């Protein structure tokens, strides 16, 4: 089977979710990307990517029950599906092979 291709931003988002574990919803994901990758991300761009990843079967999302915080709005949590793990390690392997013996 052909390896599923992941864009750079998709990889970053997936890795952020992976790092956050069971605390992965909108706000922390954006914070994680901002802190580690040094990128400002709009909610629109983030959720468009998350919807796409979900459609591709890379992540799964569910709504948590609403709490008194943040105006009583529920949170949408994300977790990685096995396909994402596979695609991520595939991408990593590709880069490692391409970098082998190179210095820039």
């Amino acid at each position, binding site marked *: 089977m052909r390896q599923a291709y992941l864009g750079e931003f998709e990889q970053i988002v997936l890795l952020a979710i992976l790092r956050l574990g069971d605390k992965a919803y*909108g706000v922390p994901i954006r914070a994680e990307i901002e802190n580690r990758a040094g990128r400002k991300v709009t909610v629109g*761009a983030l*959720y*468009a990517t998350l919807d*796409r990843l979900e459609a591709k079967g890379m992540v799964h999302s569910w709504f948590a029950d609403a709490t008194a915080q943040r105006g009583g709005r*529920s*949170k949408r949590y994300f977790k990685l599906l096995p396909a994402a793990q596979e695609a991520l390690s595939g991408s990593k392997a590709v880069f490692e092979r391409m970098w082998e013996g190179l210095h820039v």
Partner: protein
Amino acid sequence: MSEPPKLAERLLRFLVGGRDADAVAGDLRETFDTSGAGRLWYWGQALSCLAVRFSLYRRAIPGIGTDFSRALRRIRRNPGYALTAMLCLALALGVNTTLFSFLDSLCFRGLPVAQADRVVQIRRHDLAFSTWPEYFSFRDNLRSVEAAATSLYFDSMEVDRTGFETDVETVSSNYAHVLRLGTALGRWFGREAETAAERPAVISYRLWQTRFAGNAAVLGKSVRVLGGSYRIAGVARPEFSGTVPPFATDAWLPVRPPRLGGGSAYLIGRMAPGASIAGVTAEMRVLTAGLRAAHPGEEILAAPAVVRRYAGIVADERHSPFFPMVTLLGAVSGMVLLIACVNVANLLLSRAAVRQREIAIRQSLGASRARLFRETLAEGLVLAAGGVLLGVFFGSGTGRALELALPSIPDPIWHGLRLGIDWRVALFLAGAGMVCALLFSLPPALANRERTLGPSMKGQAARHFRQREIFSVAQVALSLTLLIATGLLLRAADRARHLDPGFAYDHRLFVNLWAHGKDANALVFPELKQRAREIPGVQDATLAWEVFPASGAGCAAATRQTEKKQVRANIVDPNYFDFLRIPIVKGHGFLAPSPGAPQAIVNQSLAQDLWPGEDPLGKTIWMGGCYIGGAADKGATVVGVARDAKYDAVNEEQQLLYYTSREEDPGNGYFSLLIRTAGDPRQWTRSLLELVQRDGRDLRIYDVDTMENSVARSLWEVKWQASLLAALGLLAIVLAAIGVYGVVACSVAQRTREIGVRMALGALPLDVQWMVLAHGLRITAIGIALGLPLSAAAVRLLRGFLYGLSPFDPVAFSAASLAWIAIAMLASWYPARRATRVDPMTALNYE
């Protein structure tokens, strides 16, 4: 702490939608509260949700699946009501589909060829662009367009010694190349046809099927048509029926340059890559300037070139005779659709009435209005989808029924019409279905909105009822209007059928001929007439320049100095008046010519117009001289006045007309030979044609037909309109009757308890029946009261179709109203009977 901007949040909800929007708004709120970012930041983030909105992977609106599955479940539980709604809609949509296909082939449909949107027609107003020699002179120098030329002829085709009537296009040899035409059999001719020893012909698929039984041996067969011999080289594709709709071409013949004296050539072209309509128009203008310089005084060249995309039959021709009819049909079918929508809305409302407890409970448990609206819409969409599917089924049925039922459509004219369902029609149908779904989802949804919870939960609400009654009244009013319009048109059609054309047309046959050279009149035609008289069974024969329907025009004035007015003219044999039984009311017919004393006969209207209150006999009428290149100014003595007759159409306004004698006026080579026969004139077609072919070697034969056919043909439009409207009116009545029935039946169901109490207290069945019946009649009465003024306003538009009948014809108005009362009584009768069968005990336990 400041609040995030409300408007931005609303935008966000609009863009993302559903529960997803809740999560995003929550995220933003959290960041907004903790990081203290400004309102501007919030706006930017909300706008960024455009990316979510337009993402290909956007998540479906949450809950939409539930809406539809609930709608389906509700429909499954009450199949009767759903089926009624779908049937109502399907009937209306089916008829609309047929009408739309009709309108489509009249107005919008392009040719069935590759890249049809690049095909243009080039004309001068509605006239041909050029003559054949001109076409051959410029065809190879065109840059923006590849142009083919075509002319249409009606002639009998002869194969294996049998002849039959055909419509023939003579075309330039590049015709098939320009239109990128394919064949079902054999091949099209190309440039080689201009020089080949044997001239090829391509026949239509229809002709192949009807005349040659689809036999492949047709290739290579020799046919005689238009005075020449051709060999069949191919059969066109079934969908292609020529480029001169509404006529359907039976055969295509190549024209060889220079084709002198061959008359006018219509141009049809394919725009070169990158060329535009404007570009082609500009080139044609330059070309016209050149042609004008080469042919000074040519009247046809004065009109500017018109280039337009090839579409439909009447595209852009607002003055077309089809146009009023097209508008009328469009309006009427829209009305039928509206009635159907009101009907379905009514049904949905009564459903809502039944469900009001459920809805009230759900509302009190927190279901939002938007949610309830979406559910109604989903239900509407499901019903509309069912209606559309059934409508396609009905549409193909009604199309066929319409084709069969339409009376006396002249054969050649409507072969070009296609009433089938194609993708445009399907698209129209789907669109109409969507609009319907919206239209009939609105009222129940609005009704939901205004509900106060208390009484609804107890199961009492009077609102719906009012609303539904109003709908029913509207239906009655609308369909009454249609009924009155239909009645008017039927009466008008009946009137038109008895219109007197003013001449005798039974047992008469004519053949239209053209002879080359000015002396043909004196030599060929009298000889032909004499021979025709000798055919066994022929009682008389005559010659005339024009036969009904005639368009021959001339100019006339009472003195040489006054400006001439355009009138009709005909050149006839002395026995013409006797032959057609047109009485000479004053003076006498044409006498033998004497040099220097030309004679003229005028009709009553022209006599009245030129010499009001005077005796026209002996007066001089001045004729001709008003056309460039027309006959010169000349005077003639009026020797007689002929009774008025119809000349071009049975329903035309009375025309002014003068006759000159064929023995004095050479005409322009065109004459019709008319014969009167002992029996059915069609039996003489063959012998007349044989005579003309044998004795008039260089004659061109245009058309052979009975005069009865010509007269009937002039009436087909009237009959056609009336029968079409009658069908639509009937449909509207059926729909509206269902509506009244629905309202009354539902009111009975809702008043079961009340009726039970009444019966238990001793009301007689008759009283209860009357109560229910009165309800139906009340709706009808109000509907009629509103419908009459509405009709009075609407039927004024029909004036042009009524042949002198007043649009306020009392017979049509009262008959329609009475018919409606009868229908309403019928529709209420069944619910009324059912009401008295209510068992008081059951009724009291109801709920």
